[in-house]
């Protein structure tokens, strides 16, 4: 980085950097080969975003050279000093790099084409992949198309930096609108059931946006963004603003909007989408619980699914007529017992780990999660928990004379959302309460927290117990919804996905967790539940892993960060920047002189 800073001072000559070229083209090429070799291109090709020209597969494949071009032209400001200015060399570099990346991918396709035996080991590398990479133009000339397209996209990517900020943003909004309208096709169709002209205009009969509607959408969204920019629109954008008053106001508006939506939306949606909404709600409940443990108290719990399992199994045992428990309660009667059991589980897991170092705590909670699952699964305890069969015939939630279970999903959504609201309220009230402040202090520095008189043992246990109770809400609802509880639903991956939801959304922030759950569980899907992009199925966990890495490297505070958490994570940068003023001069200088 220092070299680049020095360059800034040097005479501005366009220089062509071969090492940069190799790095960018290599990375973009690798990304494209990865997308093809893992079979993403092939799988997602069935999902057409804009019929007939753009599929999800090609969108993913071709975003690589575009992003690469964008990064080539991007200038970062480090410690107030901008690195070397944009020159025409960047454009050349982006084009050549795109070309090389395309060639690498074409070479890979040629390789797969010549060695059909590869398919024995790598099931994805077959003729289908080659024909997609050559755009169905045959093996010879087809290999040249991809490099050309990649070069053009690289050029487009770098060209973005020559547009004004406003125009660039508008184009981004337009593209995002088109893509998300295509992804949310089923939601839009469901919601506008009463006004079917709109979906009929937007979507092709066979699925996917039509070309005309995509263009119209893009122009409308980009135009709206272009002309509205700069004007104050109260909305989600200001949720992250530093001004507490503004933040509060926009939170209230957002909360009101969400409230209205939650009341109206389930009525408009069909069964499949309400199912999806319920899953989002269940994961949001767990996310809120884990948010208290990880986000507020800073205890990394990797076995959080254990509490969900305890809640679900307790509810199942108490309500199912087939269970080993001699008496049978209804959902409401069993609910307090479920909470109690979860709280006890919280104490039981929490106490042994209280004195442990943070990372040991993580791995031990993971161990607890697995122990719980294996015990539920074992033959030894199968007289109680049913072993691999699980506990069956769990009744729904009795309301009046009827029982609401998974088959009455439209009503069930309201229950889920009701408990989400309770959990959100609890989280919100706890955040700035005495114990919430104790958690924050403990998270930042445990020794100092103890020194100022915070009972860290009590604080940690309370975090575990509150988290466990919120997870048991989800467990109790889950049992009533699915009707059968078995150990397979409580694998470690559930804990990890909840963690990703919390981290991607924004640790320590309720709205952040909600956004995380909506985006991840809603679009990608949960561990065993499909999301809107059902095609993602087998790549879901790959994407979750990649997201986790990306967020930790680029934005550890999440999409909608809590202000305090963001400050903690970037403390070092703040301290560094404090030395320099806006022009990058050393602040201490004048005083010393």
């Amino acid at each position, binding site marked *: 980085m220092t070299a680049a800073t020095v360059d800034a001072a040097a005479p501005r000559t366009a220089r062509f950097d071969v090492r940069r070229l190799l790095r960018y083209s290599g990375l973009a090429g690798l990304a494209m080969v990865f997308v093809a070799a893992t079979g*993403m291109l092939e799988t997602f090709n069935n999902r057409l975003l804009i019929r007939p020209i753009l599929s999800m597969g090609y969108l993913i494949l071709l975003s690589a050279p575009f992003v690469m071009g964008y990064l080539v032209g991007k200038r970062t400001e480090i410690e107030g000093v901008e690195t070397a200015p944009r020159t025409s060399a960047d454009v050349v570099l982006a084009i050549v790099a795109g070309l090389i990346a395309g060639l690498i991918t074409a070479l890979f396709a040629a390789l797969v084409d010549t060695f059909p035996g590869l398919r024995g080991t790598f099931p994805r590398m077959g003729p289908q992949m080659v024909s997609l990479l050559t755009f169905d133009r045959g093996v010879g000339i087809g290999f040249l198309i991809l490099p050309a397209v990649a070069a053009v996209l690289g050029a487009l990517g770098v060209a973005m930096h020559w547009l004004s900020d406003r125009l660039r943003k508008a184009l981004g909004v337009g593209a995002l609108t088109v893509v998300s309208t295509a992804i949310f096709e089923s939601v839009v169709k469901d919601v506008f059931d009463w006004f079917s002209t709109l979906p009929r205009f937007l979507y092709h009969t066979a699925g996917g946006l039509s070309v005309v509607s995509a263009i119209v959408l893009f122009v409308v969204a980009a135009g709206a963004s272009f002309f509205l920019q700069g004007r104050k629109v109260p909305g989600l954008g200001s949720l992250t603003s530093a001004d507490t008053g503004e933040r509060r106001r926009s939170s209230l508006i957002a909360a009101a909007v969400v409230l209205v939506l939650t009341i109206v939306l389930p009525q408009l949606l069909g069964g499949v989408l309400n199912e999806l909404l319920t899953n989002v709600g269940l994961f949001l409940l767990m996310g809120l619980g884990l948010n208290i443990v990880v986000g507020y108290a800073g205890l990394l719990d990797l076995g959080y699914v254990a509490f969900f399992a305890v809640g679900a199994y307790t509810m199942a045992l108490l309500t199912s007529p087939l269970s080993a428990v001699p008496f049978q309660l209804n959902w409401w009667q069993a609910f307090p017992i479920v909470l109690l059991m979860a709280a006890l589980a919280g104490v039981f897991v929490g106490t042994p780990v209280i*004195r442990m170092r943070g990372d*040991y705590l993580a791995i031990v909670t*993971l161990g607890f999660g*697995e122990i719980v699952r294996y015990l539920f699964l074992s033959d030894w305890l199968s007289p109680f928990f049913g072993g691999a069969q699980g506990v069956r015939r769990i009744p729904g939630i009795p309301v009046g004379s009827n029982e609401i279970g998974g088959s009455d999903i439209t009503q069930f959504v309201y229950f889920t959302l009701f408990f989400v609201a309770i959990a959100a309220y609890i989280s919100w009230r706890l955040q700035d309460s005495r114990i919430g402040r104790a958690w924050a202090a403990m998270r930042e520095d445990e020794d100092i927290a103890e020194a100022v008189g915070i009972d860290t043992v009590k604080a940690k246990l309370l975090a575990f117990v509150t988290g466990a109770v919120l997870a048991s809400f989800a467990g109790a609802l889950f049992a009533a919804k699915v009707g059968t509880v078995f150990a397979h639903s409580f694998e470690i991956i559930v804990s990890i996905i909840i963690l990703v939801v919390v981290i991607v959304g924004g640790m320590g922030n309720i709205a952040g967790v909600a956004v995380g759950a909506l985006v991840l569980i809603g679009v990608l899907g949960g561990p065993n539940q499909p999301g809107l992009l059902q095609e993602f199925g087998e790549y879901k966990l*790959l994407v979750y*892993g*990649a997201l986790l890495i990306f967020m*930790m490297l680029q934005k550890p505070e999440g999409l909608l960060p809590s202000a305090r958490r963001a400050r903690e994570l970037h403390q070092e940068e703040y301290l560094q920047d404090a030395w320099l003023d806006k022009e990058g001069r050393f602040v201490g200088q004048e005083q010393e002189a």
Partner: protein
Amino acid sequence: MTATTAEAATRVRKSFRPSWVDLFLWAIRIGAIVIIAWGLIGSILNFAAGRGLSATQWRDLIVAALSQGAMYGLLALGYSMVYGVLGFINFAHGEVFMSGAMVGFIAANWLFDAGIWAANPILSLFIVLVVAMLTSTLVAILVERVAYRKLRGAPRLIPLITSIGVSFFLQYTFAALFGVAVRSYPQVPESFRGALNIGGFRIAWSSVLVIVVAILSMIGLWYFVTRTKSGQAMRAVAEDKEIAALMGIDVDRTIVTVFAVGGAMAGVAALMWAILFRGVNFFTGFLPGIKAFTSAVLGGIGNLVGAMGGGVLLGLFEGVGPLLILGGLGIPGVSQLKDVVAFTALVLVLVFRPSGIFGERLGSEDRV
């Protein structure tokens, strides 16, 4: 006089009054000891009455457990070294091991098809070993470069969470590339299938091979760490990064060495897995990874001899424990509870002796 002494005594007793957390921990400790003792006595009584396994079966069980423990030990070295130097749990180390086993499988399969596997078994195993070691080393170095290097000095949970992400990313990348089916290594050549007779003990060749390889790699590692320049640099960086840098040690390069050596050991472990279990798929690395971490903690993290010892001990716990202790308690279906025993061992180690059996060796920043 007596009154004041008594008063002082109460005061002292009061200040040492254990909190209820201590009481809880003591309850766990005592409960664990009672259960283990009960199970042992039950097993001994069973054995005396001629029920359950025979002496030969017990011995075979122990030998199998030892060889599996040796594998855990080699994996544990990777966790231990990274924790000692960088202070975080490299959750993805199990996947480094898995990648070696998967790519090693391709090599083995190719050798089998070419007929070399049957004609020249020693050479084939050696080639598989080299391929597995190279792959694991490469993956470990890549992971360090891409994911961890930027995170030095970040709060310690951040690299841990990142490594979880890396772990899942690698798992499902391999699942997507190779498919999810379990692939089996070709059968170990004829000459290794028999058993070796050492002073009346019959020990399976494969176990002997695994244990010998483990001992050889341990000696190699010991020589590297204590007798070479790079090994010295590693120890210095583990002790104190800043001062090591002041002494002219290239810290970045040394950390890469740490990951490379850990990866190479994981590659050796991958070969052992191939000999012991044969079947590999994308999920192969996950449980062995967590168990190897348990071994590292058991032996005392940062301590290389401890990692190996911890691995062997955990192998014994897990291999013999379910039958010996749970079987003695009369619990049915104990083989299902193997992993429960391993995880319980982890919890108990951290409750009884968080610094491990052989004592931990951590850098200045991580010592508590």
